[in-house]
């Protein structure tokens, strides 16, 4: 980040600091309320399209929000975050296809695998700064993608995991039932967002912001920067992996595209669309991105041009994500009305 942006970003975040102290109970209540609303949605509408949309939002949203923990909160520009999305999808899919364990077991085991892989890769990557961090994460992503393509006997190569992912019912939940899958995806999304919000608002979260703004100063006051970066790298990987698992369940398969750099690129694009200075920016970005993708591919096969122009509008025209823009606009309005009042 440039200094100016870091300054802007920290200003916005500082504002929210003074207003909102970590309030886990209140957050939990909000999360619960959101979940209830989402869970009641199928009763109001019979549109499978809407449910599909929410499921995809859950997969991409967890992925993009976790990327923002790195990009927006810690200043770690990862170009390879998609590898954990792919890892989640493949880990879960393979576990279900090859071992036939129960869904929750496979879920936890996949996160455990992600944890180990992220720890190893992270330990190597977080030593590097800025563009070099970006490159080395990208290189790892390509290496993993290449491995998936080459290791045909395990991964099915370019054709992905074929034959569908078995989803035996557990605890009365049957994930091959669309509605059940929907509810579980919503639950994972809400829990994931809640946890990430707790991380962001915790003292550790403020350590991360300090590292982003000035890593040298942070290390002067006794923060182990490497350790903090590694911790958030691994945590973010876990949430990205969860997103991958939801995606694997949604398409009942896993494909090399899930571990390709384009997924990381889309994650960055989503973050830019929604804005990186607010916690919910990436969620807003996810919804925007999916709506944009779905409608544009419907209308024209030249969607590259349309998407390109939209990106340019945000990057050069607006110069910030939508949520950043909204918040700034709101703050300015409040300031102006404040002036008028005084």
């Amino acid at each position, binding site marked *: 980040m440039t200094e100016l942006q870091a300054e802007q970003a920290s200003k916005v975040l500082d504002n929210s600091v003074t207003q909102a102290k970590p309030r886990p109970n209140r957050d939990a209540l909000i999360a619960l309320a959101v979940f209830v609303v989402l869970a009641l949605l199928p009763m109001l509408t019979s549109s499978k*399209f809407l449910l599909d949309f929410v499921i995809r939002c859950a997969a991409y949203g967890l992925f993009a929000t976790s990327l923002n923990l790195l990009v927006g909160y810690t200043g770690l520009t990862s170009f390879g975050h998609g590898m954990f999305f792919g890892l989640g999808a493949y880990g879960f899919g393979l576990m279900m296809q090859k071992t036939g364990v129960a869904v929750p077991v496979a879920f936890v085991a996949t996160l455990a695998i992600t944890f180990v892989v992220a720890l190893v890769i992270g330990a190597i990557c977080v030593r590097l700064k800025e563009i070099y961090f970006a490159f080395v994460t990208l290189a790892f992503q390509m290496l993993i993608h290449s491995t998936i393509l080459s290791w045909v006997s395990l991964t099915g190569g370019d054709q992905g995991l074929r034959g569908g992912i078995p989803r035996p019912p557990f605890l009365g939940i049957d994930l091959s039932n669309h509605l059940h899958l929907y509810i579980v995806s919503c639950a994972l999304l809400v829990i994931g967002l809640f946890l990430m919000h707790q991380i962001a608002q915790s003292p550790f979260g403020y350590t991360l912001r300090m590292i982003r703004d000035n890593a040298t100063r942070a290390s002067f006051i006794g923060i182990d920067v490497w350790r903090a970066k590694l911790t958030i790298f691994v945590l973010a990987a876990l949430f990205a992996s969860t997103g991958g698992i939801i995606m694997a369940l949604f398409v009942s398969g896993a494909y090399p595209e899930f571990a390709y750099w384009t997924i990381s690129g889309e994650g960055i694009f989503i973050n830019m669309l929604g804005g990186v200075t607010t916690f919910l920016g990436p969620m807003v970005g996810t919804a925007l991105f999916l709506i944009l993708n779905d409608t544009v*591919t419907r209308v024209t*096969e030249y969607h590259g041009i349309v998407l390109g122009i939209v990106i340019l509008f945000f990057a050069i025209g607006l110069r910030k994500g939508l949520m950043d823009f909204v918040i700034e606009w709101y703050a300015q309005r409040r300031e102006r009305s404040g002036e008028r009042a005084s």
Partner: protein
Amino acid sequence: MTRTRKPGISRRSTLALMGAGAVTFAAPWVARAQAKTIKVGMPTILSGRVAQLGTSSRNGVMLEVEKVNAAGGLAGRQIEMVIRDSKGQPQEAARVARELVNTDGCELLIDAEASSGAFAVHEVARDLGVLCIHTNSETSALTADPKQHIPNAFRTARQGVHDSIVGGSYAAAISKAKGLKKWATCAPDYAYGRDTTGEFTLYLKRFAPDVEIISESWPKLFQPDYTEVVTKILQAKPQALYSCLWGGDLTSYIDQANIYALFTQMEVFAVNMADYTALTVVKNLPKGIHSGNRYIKTYPATAENAAWGDAYKAKYNEYPTNWSWENATAIMLLAEASKKANSADGKKLAEALRGLKIKSPFGADGTVTMRAEDQTLIGYAIGWGTTIPQEPYVPEVKPGDWKTILELEAEWKKSKGYT
């Protein structure tokens, strides 16, 4: 945006009009005749590296849909195609397929995806139970593997194993005649390339047991530069080379191998050469490359086939591709099945499709059959010949024998544990 080429304008605007007509402008008109129309969803690849093939799939379908609609549609219901781009990404293909059924109300699916997309759409078909015809995936396992089998999915594409049996026996005959013992292979490093090469060499060795594979190259799909592959093959000094590179990769490879004079040093068997997308593009096409037919209007050498190829060319100003005929066949089969079932209902159509034999310009004997046991197409024209640099490109095609193909296929299935 300026469009430079004159012929391009007319072709593209036809495409645009057609696409728009099918998807958008038709909507109000359709609304009035709601009960009469049947929506058919078609996820395919309209952007990215293989957009050309996706476009040709769409062309193949639309050419036939017009005929079917003019003749009264499917059991009296006009077909309305809803064609969407999946960008070649499996997860998008799955998403689009779901959306086509769930939101757009499509009652049938034509899955014009490449292999990985086809497997993704296959899962959607399994989930939703909608009638789905895979038109492009040649991966044998899609229909041969009983684990994949679902009653509502069919395939109208050629099958890798059929191709390899014919190619293997053709190549073996030439090997014996010319004493070609040392072979090299060069195939794109992905499932299609690996499977096809494996099966080809399997049958080559079966028919000509003294053949030996002395060198294998596995360039990446869409690799721009094949120099190291070409020189590696030159080093190995084989007497013959097999390759299942296709499209732009094949033409790149030929251009790059040409300047090393590779084609004068060995017999080349390139299964995907005899396709107009490659034949018309390569500027200095070497003489005498052995190739399997993909789509070529002179084989089968019938008036029907030539007429179909010309009609396509007249309409789209380019020749059909392998994917074109495969997609056209799907519509032809659906039309016949709806006549047989006197219904456009997916379940009834599926029932009618099983074992259905129809007249077809692409049939080896003028007919093609949707085999009931594994719901895949057989009896299509398949053969090998050698190329010349100008039309008709492959003057003589030696047809494959379907009796042998079916026998060996059954044996192959057994060896894979599929039966």
